[in-house]
């Protein structure tokens, strides 16, 4: 069992796929792998996608690191093979937040340098 008191900053910077998955999972219900792939695509308006190899390797690692929990419900009505469902943990949320803060700080620098267009 992972300790919740671990410092989220220890895992920063996150791999891109890890950050995508943590955001795609949100605070809602648990999602299975394919649903996470679709959620990543949907939240980026199809600009970003995640391939199954990357997804499942990342999920295995995230389970080990305590960022997500894995479960296998008995009454899965989604069709297809028996699936594992993933849910973001509190620690996962804290890590996603820390990564977001890190990226925001970078964005502020970019904004200060007028990287988003507008009059120079």
């Amino acid at each position, binding site marked *: 069992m992972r300790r919740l008191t671990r410092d989220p900053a220890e895992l920063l910077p996150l791999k891109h796929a890890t950050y995508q998955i943590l955001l795609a999972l949100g605070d809602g219900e648990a999602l*299975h*792998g*394919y649903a996470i*792939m679709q959620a990543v695509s949907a939240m980026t308006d199809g600009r970003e996608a995640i*391939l*199954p*190899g*990357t*997804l*499942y*390797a990342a*999920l*295995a*690692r995230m389970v*080990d690191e305590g960022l997500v929990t894995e479960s296998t419900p008995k009454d899965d009505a989604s069709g*297809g*093979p*028996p*699936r*594992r469902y993933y849910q973001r943990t509190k620690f996962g949320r804290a890590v996603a937040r820390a990564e977001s803060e890190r990226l925001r700080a970078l964005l502020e620098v970019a904004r200060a340098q007028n990287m988003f267009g507008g009059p120079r």
Partner: protein
Amino acid sequence: MTRLYQLALRAFPCRHRDLYSAEMLDAFDRELGARAGRDRLRFVCAACLNAIGTGLAERQRQRRIRQGPAFSALDFTLAWRILRRDPGLSLVSVLGMSVGITIAAGAFTIASMLMATTLPLPEGDRLVSLVSWDASTNNRESRLLYDLEAWRHATSVEHLGVSRDVQRNLIVDGRAPEVVLVAEISASAFRAAGVKAARGRTLVPDDERAGAPDVLVIGYDEWIRRFGADPDIVGQSVGLGPTRYTIVGVMPEGFGFPAYHGFWIPWRLDAAACAPRSGPSVSVFGRLAPGATLESAQAELTAIGRRLAAASPATHEHLRPLAVPYAHVFSDMDEPETALAVYAVEIAIVLLLVLICINVAILVYARTATRQGEIAVRVALGASRRRIVAQLFVEALILAGLSAAIGVGLTAVGLRQLEAALLALIPRWPFWFSLELQTSTVVYIVGLTLLAAAIVGVAPALKATGRRVHTRLQTLSPGSGSRMQMGRLWTGLIVAQVAVTVAILPMATYFGWSALRLQSGGGYATGEFLSASVSLDRGPVPLAEADEQAFAARYAGTLAEIERRLRDDARVREVTFSLAKPGRELAVVLEAEGVPVPVDTVDDNIVEGTRRGTLVRFNRVTPDFFSAFDVPVSLGRGLTAADASADAAGVTPGVVVSRRLVDDVFGGVSPLGRRIKYVGRSREAPARHVALERWYEIVGVVPDFPLPGSFDDESEGRVYHAVAAGDLYPARLHVRVRAGDPAALADPLRDLSASIAPDVLLLDVSTAGIAFTQEQAMMRLIGMSLALVIVSVLLLSSAGIYSLMSFTVARRRREIGIRAALGANRHRILAGIFSRVMAQLGAGAVLGVIAAVGLQQILEGDMVRNYRAMLLPLVALLMMTLGVIAAIGPVRQGLRIQPIEALRDE
């Protein structure tokens, strides 16, 4: 397409595939279904490549998780327990390695000290010595004043300076004169060294002017010791011989430039007036100019050297000027042979450590073999080879670490002892020499520890965890014994182990024994003699020829006066003079009339004449010398005043030789009336005392005196010439007391000399007993070190041979049991086993004896001359006995196995 993706998924580890492959394939199919045309193909390629890449990465990750960290605290705990379980083996291993590490670390410290290129001065690595090498005699030429004038044109070296050592009588008002070493040095030396005076000033160029006031700079230690740290020291005057000097400065603590000096007076000799290769011996030094390197300085010097050789070919044809790191001149590291020898010794000592570690590795391997079952079980339970090797390495690391800790302590103590012994023998050390344990030595010891741990731990571990480790699990059963294969490698090791021990041990034992048994005397009444070198202070400027004659007459008169006053003293029994101390005679090459010249050349510092001949030692003594030392003339007659005057007049003079010379040159036949001449002289034998190619007639034979000491199996014969005391400069005075400690006469002797004249210099006032005690202390230290090495090598070799023999025989225990069960004759079984054991041990002993004899030849065969016959077979017998004893236990166990038990195991 799905099939292709399925193949790509095989890059993932099994566990991952078992868990996720169905879902991954499902996700792949769904995504593929949502695409069409080229987009579909692009997706398949991307997904497959992605699966392979991430799969391989996941494999790596899981392997890392499975293996865990290379080392853990548990490894250290387990290793400590295992080492404690086998205290005998651990103790022997630690003892052996600590001796190896101590010797290697000690050698490293000495080599670092000798090879240091940086002085503890500002930018101390830029100071250089300029030396001149005579390629024809392979010796340094130190009469450099003529060359110095030419070297001043070199732009790569600035603040070029020159110095020479002079011994002067320091006369501080109200105190008896004391002989001190003074550096007569150019003012530029202080700029080259980059050090300012702590009080007052250093020497300045104006001090070198003829007629300038005589000034003196003193060292910090001298200021404390001789002047009680007097704050008003600057401006006071003291006498150096007959001249008064004003102290103008005190140098800071620790400063001893050019080497070990505490008094500095200005250089006043005019170098420009010197002819090539004439004048006094001097040292020349300077500082590399900004931007210059040793190489650029050397290039410039070489060019100057060529010009000098062209201008004066008679003197400079073979001289090669060299720019070397300053410190190297004092450790002879400017001579390539010395540097090579130091490197060779260091490598040899590390190899000794490696040899010791291999021995320990054999011991550890034999123990690892008994843990084969444990290793096989751990492998079966999933332990990786890396983990098991790491654990065995940790065990070795603890052994090596303990050895290193002991080694650091022993090195520190040993170096202190060595420094004390060396300081007693060599009273003056360059101020940068130190035998303290340095940080670099500790780092070196850490390196040695890791090397030792790698040899001791990793080699047996890799062998024990080899490919066959899995099969060993099948063979594990109670009473089956070890199944680890020893094979040819281990037979070879047994043979090599015995061979190396037999080859090296007798010689080392002989050396150690010789050093320890050194006599405390030289075979004469060393406890009754006080000796000193007597000279007169000649002042800083060379004397004119007329003054030389007056000087010689005054010197002869002084000696006569000293002798007269000493003979008047009731405590004194005998007074006599010689050129060299007994036992420190000067090396020369001798040729005897009618005796073939030896084929071998003399290996000594021969600077003039030939090396072809017999190396002998030469001394000039007053006619009463032998009677003063109670040395009887065993054949012919002793020396007379007539011999001394014949020598001076050019008539063939009579000489007395030692028994050893008679044996070496004349094969023990009486040499009376035979003639000898010198054909070569060494650096220390002054040309004015050794006339080459002049015949002398042997008139008497005396016993060897002093008696051979430690390694004096190699000592040479001696030739004694008669001389009048006044013709010796400087003469060595020997005073024999009637009773009591001769050292008590040292101060009265100094007072007596000072009362004759303030410029009488008494140097090296010592008793023969002290000199022998110092030499004895040094030899004891060497002997003890050798004894330590011998004991550890013997211990390790014995333990190694014992382990190997018992292990190889233990492997055959069941075979012995089965053969016994099948009715084989016990004697035949025993004969079979022991014939193999004896073959291995015998092969080792024979190889060892051959190697020992070979070593004898290489080392010129003198070292174990009388001992080889006894020591070699003794050590061989010891090793073979050990091997046989080691084999007896397992053989007896094998014979005791019940036949049914042996067969059931099969």
